[in-house]
């Protein structure tokens, strides 16, 4: 058993509560505890992704061995898919916490901020690592409750309203998920994902299967803000403090929504074509509607939040295409290509969307406004912010040397090879509209008018914020390397094998 696995949850939890005790007596201790915890997590997540080499490693909490082949106790499972998500969570978490050193100093009670931040990271690491659905629910709630508090961190009118909406819809989602889990337990008498797959088998009645899938899809869809369930996302993501927006948009909707949907629908349920069709439709719908809603926005962070919905649509759609092809049993290599595009886009989106939110935070930090109409001419005054946001805008719109281009290209190629011409056309159009929308952002925020350099004109943000933004901008370029076959074989291919091979996950967990 790999001793690093429980540390992913235990260390941030310990850090959160230690911050609250030590931070009361020592000023500034909170920052350094938070940073050390996240740095440690980042390092061990890189160790685990390189040391995994395609295997699945299972950790039985409390040392409860299976009885007669039935797993009892809590299993933590680290496979290539979870390792990718762990790297995303902890890297973005580390950069956001460095960014908040100076950014969060404008608020009071910093102790609570760092403590809740660590709790949220613990929850997300837990979701990604847990091998049974009830623990997914618990860790989901840990991360959700801390994110409710973090969205309301400014305690102004808008934050409070956004967090109330977010909480009511989040509570509804939790109920749907819990009902889905209880239905599964009723039928399968087990909670372990691999064991449920074995217990439900192929002969389960459709009348049982479809409602459960719909319940879980709507529950996790609410967390992932797929289109009919998206109402809370623009409010919550735009009202939160900027490092938290970067965490919510860049990581939380992936770890709590998309990851769980992928895990449950590929590894726990039998893949059916109806469900795959539904998922593809929802993905294409959120891709198109999200970007159309984003065009009219003049508030930077709302604009970015709507683009999150749209970009997540790409991921859901490509996963759906992969599912359809897997269900039909034709062209398995195209199915893996589609899923590869989706996962690659998931990684890329974390990098550029967090960067964009950090840029928006930097602009707000210096100018005090989020309205595009009342800013402009910042390019000469804030060179680092301007150049990094240019990189991120180009990456999200899919312009060649940046990472967004390659993932969108793979998704579109897979859609064409799978004979989904209509979806390919939508993906191209959405990409063009995204480019237009980000040209608007660039023009109104950074060019458009001249500002004379004077005493009280906005200047470049402090070093920790610049450090995070530049690192993410470099990541936006470096991540394009995943498209190379040598790198892809290490990172993406094992994760795709776990998703496409329907028996691999189950046999390697219950077979041990």
């Amino acid at each position, binding site marked *: 058993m790999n001793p690093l696995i429980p540390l992913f949850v235990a260390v941030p939890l310990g850090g959160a509560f230690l911050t609250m005790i030590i931070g009361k007596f020592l000023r500034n201790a909170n920052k350094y505890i938070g940073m050390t915890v996240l740095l440690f997590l980042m390092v061990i997540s890189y160790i685990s992704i390189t040391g995994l080499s395609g295997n699945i490693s299972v950790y039985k909490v409390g040392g409860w061995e299976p009885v007669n082949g039935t797993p009892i106790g809590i299993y933590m499972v680290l496979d290539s898919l979870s390792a990718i998500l762990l790297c995303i969570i902890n890297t973005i978490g580390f950069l956001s916490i460095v960014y908040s050193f100076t950014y969060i100093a404008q608020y009071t009670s910093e102790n609570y901020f760092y403590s809740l931040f660590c709790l949220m990271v613990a929850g997300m690491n837990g979701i990604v690592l847990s091998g049974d659905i009830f623990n997914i629910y618990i860790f989901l709630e840990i991360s959700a*409750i801390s994110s409710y508090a973090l969205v309301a961190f400014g305690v102004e009118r808008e934050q409070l309203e956004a967090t109330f*909406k977010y*909480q009511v819809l989040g509570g*509804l989602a939790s109920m749907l998920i*819990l009902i889905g889990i*209880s239905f599964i337990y009723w039928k399968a008498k087990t909670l372990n994902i691999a064991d449920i797959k074995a217990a439900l088998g192929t002969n389960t009645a459709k009348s049982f299967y479809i409602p459960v899938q719909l319940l879980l899809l709507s529950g996790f869809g609410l967390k992932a803000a797929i289109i009919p369930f998206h109402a809370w996302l623009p409010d919550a993501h735009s009202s939160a403090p900027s490092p938290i927006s970067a965490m919510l948009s860049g990581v939380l909707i992936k770890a709590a929504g998309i990851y769980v949907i992928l895990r449950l629908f590929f590894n726990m349920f039998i893949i059916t074509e109806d469900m795959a069709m539904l998922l593809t439709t929802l993905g294409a719908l959120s891709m198109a509607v999200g970007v159309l809603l984003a065009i009219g926005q003049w508030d930077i962070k709302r604009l970015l939040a709507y683009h999150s919905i749209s970009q997540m649509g790409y991921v859901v759609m490509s996963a759906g295409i992969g599912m359809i092809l897997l269900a039909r049993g034709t062209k398995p290599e195209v199915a893996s290509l589609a899923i590869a595009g989706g996962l690659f886009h998931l990684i890329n989106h974390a990098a550029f969307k967090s960067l964009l939110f950090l840029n928006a935070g930097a602009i707000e930090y210096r100018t005090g406004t989020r309205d595009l109409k009342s800013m402009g001419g910042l390019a000469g005054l804030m060179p680092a912010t301007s150049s990094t946001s240019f990189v991120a805008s180009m990456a999200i719109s899919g312009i060649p040397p940046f990472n967004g281009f390659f993932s969108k290209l793979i998704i579109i190629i897979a859609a064409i090879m799978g004979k989904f011409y209509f979806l390919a056309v939508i993906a191209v159009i959405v990409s063009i509209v995204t480019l237009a929308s980000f040209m608007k952002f660039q023009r109104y925020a950074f060019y458009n008018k001249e500002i004379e350099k004077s005493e009280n004109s906005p200047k470049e943000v402090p070093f920790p914020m610049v450090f995070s933004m530049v690192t993410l901008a470099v990541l936006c370029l470096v991540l394009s390397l995943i498209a190379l076959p040598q790198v892809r074989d290490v990172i993406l291919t094992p994760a795709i094998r776990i998703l496409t091979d329907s028996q691999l996950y189950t046999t390697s967990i219950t077979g041990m």
Partner: protein
Amino acid sequence: MILYLLCFVLFLVGLYGVITRRNLMKITISLSIMEFSTFLFLALIGYVKNGVPPIVDPAKPDVIYVDPLPQAMVLTAIVIGLATTAMLMAVIIRIYRKYKTLDIREIKNLRG
């Protein structure tokens, strides 16, 4: 069977409240009703016919116990529900201080 149906009815009562009520406090109460209907359902699925509470008594080794796992799950879910409700209450008090009202129709800064 009738019990499961009643659980579902309770769930719908809560959902109706969340959708139609205008008062933030009443929305929270409706959400709690929904939560508790789910907990009831979860507790019910662990019932085994003629089962006794799962407390091990060394004197009587062979009796049928009801399934203790859903009960543990319900306890965990209740703790989570407590945290959510407390969080909502704190937010509602803060909202009342800022807006001086609990009517959801008056609280609409964010739209579009």
